[in-house]
């Protein structure tokens, strides 16, 4: 059982700004597995799940971007109807509060990335209920 790290970037709402960020990630040789964008009024917060987080983080930082790495839970789910519902309803029952979440396909299955309140407690609860969580190594 482990947590995963995601890359978070502040991106102003202007033309070409997101492309600049994704360009740098590509230049760093990192693949984007999944991402989500939270809309502010004049800026967005973009969270990326990458196969090589370290090199993207360093290059973005070097180019003057506002970046951070934060801990999330990555849970494998079956890529079939009701897959997401199963996970999210179990989270509700276990008292795991999801701040935000995003999902992406990987291989034959899918991965749900969740930012939760009280990471350790949530991790224990999910483990107790028989869930597995993935680390960055599992994903790359």
């Amino acid at each position, binding site marked *: 059982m482990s947590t995963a790290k*995601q890359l*978070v970037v*502040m*991106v*102003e709402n202007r033309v070409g700004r997101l492309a600049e960020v994704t360009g740098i990630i590509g230049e760093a040789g990192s693949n984007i597995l999944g991402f989500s964008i*939270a*809309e*502010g*009024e*004049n*800026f967005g*917060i973009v*969270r990326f799940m990458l196969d090589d987080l370290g090199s993207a983080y360093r290059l973005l930082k070097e180019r*003057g*971007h*506002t*970046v*951070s790495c*934060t801990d999330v839970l990555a849970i494998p789910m079956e890529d079939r109807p009701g897959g997401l519902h199963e996970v999210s309803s179990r989270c509700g029952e276990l008292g795991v509060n999801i*701040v*935000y979440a995003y999902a992406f396909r990987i291989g034959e299955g899918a991965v749900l990335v969740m*930012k939760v309140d009280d990471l350790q407690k949530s991790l224990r609860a999910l483990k107790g209920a028989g869930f597995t969580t993935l680390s960055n190594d599992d994903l790359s």
Partner: protein
Amino acid sequence: MYWNARMECMPKEELRNLQFRELKTLVYRLYSFNNFYRERMKEHGVHPDDIQTLEDIRKLPFMYKKDLRDHYPTKMFTSSKDEVVRYHVSSGTTGKPTLVGYTENDIEFWTDSLARALTSIGIGTGDVVQVSYGYGLFTGGLGLHYGAERVGATVLPASVGNTERQLELMMDLDVTAIACTPSYMIHMGEVAKRLGIDFRRDTKLRKAILGAEPWSEGMRQHIEENLGIEAYDIYGTSELSGPMFTECEERNGIHVWGDVGIVEIIDPETEEPVPDGEVGELVITVLKKEAMPMIRYRISDLTYALEETCTCGRSSTRIGRISGRTDDMLIIRGINVFPSQVEHTLMNIPEVGEQFMIILDRKGALDTMTVQAELSPEHFSDKMADMMAIKKKIDSDMRKYLNISVNVELMDPGSLPRFEGKAKRVIDKRVF
């Protein structure tokens, strides 16, 4: 029609003699009773006896807004606290406000000056005047209120806001004149249009007295054509008492009554007088003021003076429309804002960095102010709620300390321009 024909139409030479006598009395009085000004004169090496002609006013030291701030609240008053009947307060550059005190006579001089002004634009008995300037610490509302009552008009103290109700009252009460900021006038016109109200058809409004923020001949034309009214420029600041002077019906400059004030226009750099009609910095000496006399006060407004007697018959010096400022003060919806206030407010919020920009624009008729502030990198969060909380904090602090609502944009650290030398933090997109 004149309110005080003798004073308003006094021959130039006689008026100048009167000004000289009043000035000499004022300087003697201040030298005797006002520690601040006596010290200032001594430092400057000038004594009341040196004032031998009206031109000798140039020997006297200037007064600045800073002097009022430094002597906050009442250290510059020349009247005892018992004689002061009212205070007005305007916001300062770094949080410290400017306090103005008035004796009963000060209120009277102010009211009388506005009575002359309102008469000169044809407002009097039979008129209903809607005062849509803010009432309260700001001088606009109460000043116009007293002036309009004095000339026998009926006053509707509408203050600011609730435009639909203001329009309704304007129609129901047959309002003939309004006093407000030019942008509020335009805003009212737009709201009226949306409600299907035609100013020409549905109201009795014929005159507007507009001021407290910069405007232009273009805006005047726009307002007059759209609303079918005549628009007049009004001038004054709280240090002079408040709005005091307006254009007359000739609309060729604002009459600054000679027995009330002496106008000088100087080159802000050399401090030497500039010729008649040339733009420079306005310096005003208020001859009639008891609680807080102002001698050679540098308001930081740029304008020009016209000395020749107006075609209306009034002999006072006229000043032109204010065309700018010598400092960086911004006027947004009638509220004075200094970039230094914005900076000061942001500096006290740990979640933002040092860089900021101010963007002024006009949305319809209303001025908008956007403050762009860089996030401090260590406060970057992946949760939007955290980021929004920072924005909200900036927003509420601006409202608290600047008394104005602004749009806040949280910027990526490092994304705002850096300046070498003098920072240009203001982008003004408004068209006046």
